[in-house]
């Protein structure tokens, strides 16, 4: 995790310990300084971008930094300016005012009149649609980039072979895109994007167009190639409205609304304790961080959260247990019976949300700390029956079958 800041007012924090940056930074982002690898950041500067442009009804004004090897997710609803941001970084869209530097190269500086053309930026782009060239085989698609970089036919072919194998689609090398399923095509597209070894990989809702069945596997394999040793630390900016993408792939989360950064920080923290109403709404999930173990997840304070792994996980891998607030049952007394996960909480807040009331848990001091920040959605009738109000000591219970354990960014 790097200390790279994003958002107006924190850009200069890039190479300094987080605590020294800005007194206005809130406590929950300050602890990232402890894990910040500032030396690595200084040796391999990643992306630093500031974009200001008028689009439709709002003004996009965003600063984002991504350290070398870091994966940052930009989360926001449609029309929040995500696509404009990506288009600017890729060089496909000319903003009114922007500076973009990547790996010590100035890619865009509107004041100085600099715009490096798309094909010389070394910025890869993977979007919802695989957009494989329809007239080329999967293998030729992947070899396309290396060929453009001047590699010979044989060398480019070898690169393509390696990446297709890496993505688990080596046997599809000779297929045309029309003969591939959506998930297969997207794997080939990932191989194609990574085969040119871009300094920055932009992911634009990369799983949004996939079947529900295909998305997790593609997400897992993408996670493996960008995070593990395969590319030795790929710098990635991911744009998504799917919280799961951010949970599984990202180190850090930047929340965008109406063209501005409203919130940012380590993924799990932002999602578990959203400070903006917007983040809370898009998050809409309970998350507990820890490490994977048999039967679920070990929290940082050593308690077990029972659940099923979404994909095979090694013991001790960083992981996040995810469940929906509506699957949390609320009790006055410690419930007996089947729920595997029961945690004492002190009710911090009650927020009406349409048909339900969201009960937000604070620290209780009576039990494991993972209960803090959890949300439980209950009906107004249940609230009336329980007679709860903020400050009350309660028990939150969730069945193990409702808990999915995902690998997490860190």
């Amino acid at each position, binding site marked *: 995790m790097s200390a790279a800041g994003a958002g107006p007012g924190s850009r200069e924090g890039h190479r300094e310990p987080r605590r020294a940056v800005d007194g206005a930074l809130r406590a929950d982002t300050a602890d990232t300084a402890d894990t910040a690898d500032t030396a690595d950041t200084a040796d391999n500067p990643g992306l630093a971008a500031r974009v200001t442009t008028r689009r439709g009804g709002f003004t996009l004004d965003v600063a984002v930094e991504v350290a070398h090897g870091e994966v940052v997710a930009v989360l926001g609803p449609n029309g929040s300016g995500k696509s404009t941001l990506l288009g600017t970084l*890729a*060089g*496909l869209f000319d903003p009114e005012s922007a500076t973009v530097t990547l790996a010590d190269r100035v890619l865009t500086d509107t004041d100085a009149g600099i715009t490096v*053309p*798309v*094909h*010389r*930026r*070394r*910025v*890869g*782009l993977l979007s919802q*649609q*695989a*957009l*494989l*060239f*329809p*007239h*080329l085989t999967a293998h030729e698609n992947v070899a*396309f*980039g290396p060929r*453009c*970089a001047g590699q010979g036919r044989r060398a480019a072919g070898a690169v393509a072979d390696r990446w297709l194998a890496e993505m688990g689609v080596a046997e599809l090398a000779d297929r*045309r*895109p*029309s*003969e*591939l*399923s*959506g998930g297969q*095509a*997207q794997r080939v597209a990932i191989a*194609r*994007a990574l085969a*040119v070894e*871009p300094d920055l990989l932009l992911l634009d809702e990369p799983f949004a167009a996939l079947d529900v069945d295909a998305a997790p596997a593609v997400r897992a394999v993408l996670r493996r190639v960008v995070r593990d040793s395969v590319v030795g630390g790929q710098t990635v900016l991911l744009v998504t409205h799917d919280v799961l993408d951010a949970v599984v792939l990202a180190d850090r989360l930047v929340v965008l609304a109406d063209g501005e950064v409203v919130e940012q920080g380590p993924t799990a923290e932002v999602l578990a304790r959203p400070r903006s109403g917007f983040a809370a709404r898009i998050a809409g999930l309970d998350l507990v961080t820890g490490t994977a173990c048999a039967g679920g997840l070990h929290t940082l304070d050593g308690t077990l959260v029972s659940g099923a792994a979404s994909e095979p996980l090694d013991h001790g891998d960083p992981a996040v247990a995810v469940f929906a607030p509506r699957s949390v049952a609320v009790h006055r007394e410690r419930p007996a019976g089947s729920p595997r996960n029961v945690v004492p909480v002190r009710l911090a807040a009650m927020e009406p949300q349409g048909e339900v009331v969201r009960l937000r848990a604070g620290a209780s001091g009576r039990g494991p700390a993972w209960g803090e920040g959890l949300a439980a959605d209950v009906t107004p009738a249940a609230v009336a029956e329980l007679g709860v109000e903020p400050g009350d000591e309660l028990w939150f219970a969730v069945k193990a079958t409702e808990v999915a354990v995902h690998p997490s960014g860190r």
Partner: protein
Amino acid sequence: MTRAAPSSPRTRSSRTGSTGHTLPWPVWVPAVVGFGLIAVPVAGLVLRADWPNFLTLITSDAALDALRLSLQTGLTSTALCLLFGTPLALVLARSDLPGLPVWRSIVLLPLVLPPVVGGLTLLFLLGRTGPVGQLLDAWFGVTVPFSTVAVVIAQTFVAMPFLVVSLEGALRTAGDRYEAVAATLGASPMTALRRVTIPVVLPGLVSGAVLAFARALGEFGATVAFAGSLQGTTRTLPLLIYLDSQDDLDSAVALSLLLVVVAVVVIVATRTRDASGVR
């Protein structure tokens, strides 16, 4: 001419299988009438033909000269359409040139203009007394009208819009997403054009070229106005057919059938390539 969308298995199945979807019957009646309007006259031609003398009629000196000239000029003007029309379609489809609709309307003018009018405008421009023709004559001693070159120019004039319309449609359907992806993979604009854009729109380019060739092959009005009707030099098959229809109807019918055969061969050959070729 449009391609199946990439990575969509659904478009493949729709190409092969019947869906059991039935057309409403009111579609069939005008469809049959329309088909008849095209097919029956051709059948009438077959019935009217003087079959015992058919081979003699189409192998006369005049006929062979006309056929050779038609194929030569048709192919040449198709090549010119590709050479100039492809970049023209790219500019119309991809550039943000100001006043693009106006430029496009001008390019499409030959589609709506009577060919004779097109031929006359060329004559006024390139004729010996025309503004450009005068200079060509004075500087190079070149006279364009009533030469084979004039035939090619007239055919290119009327045929080019067919290629441009077809290709521009294909380019717009394909969108610029593939070019954008190619650029992010490091392809220069020229590389992207050569290795992505052109291959992706190749079916549209082929069908556009076929249309242009067919139009050039059948060209009459502009040719007769601008190039005249000299055997071996400017008298193409349509001109010969018209000439013969005045006094030698048997020959006109035989040559008409020859033209039909050439057209059908071209269409069938390129259609099969279109469906299977790029795959």
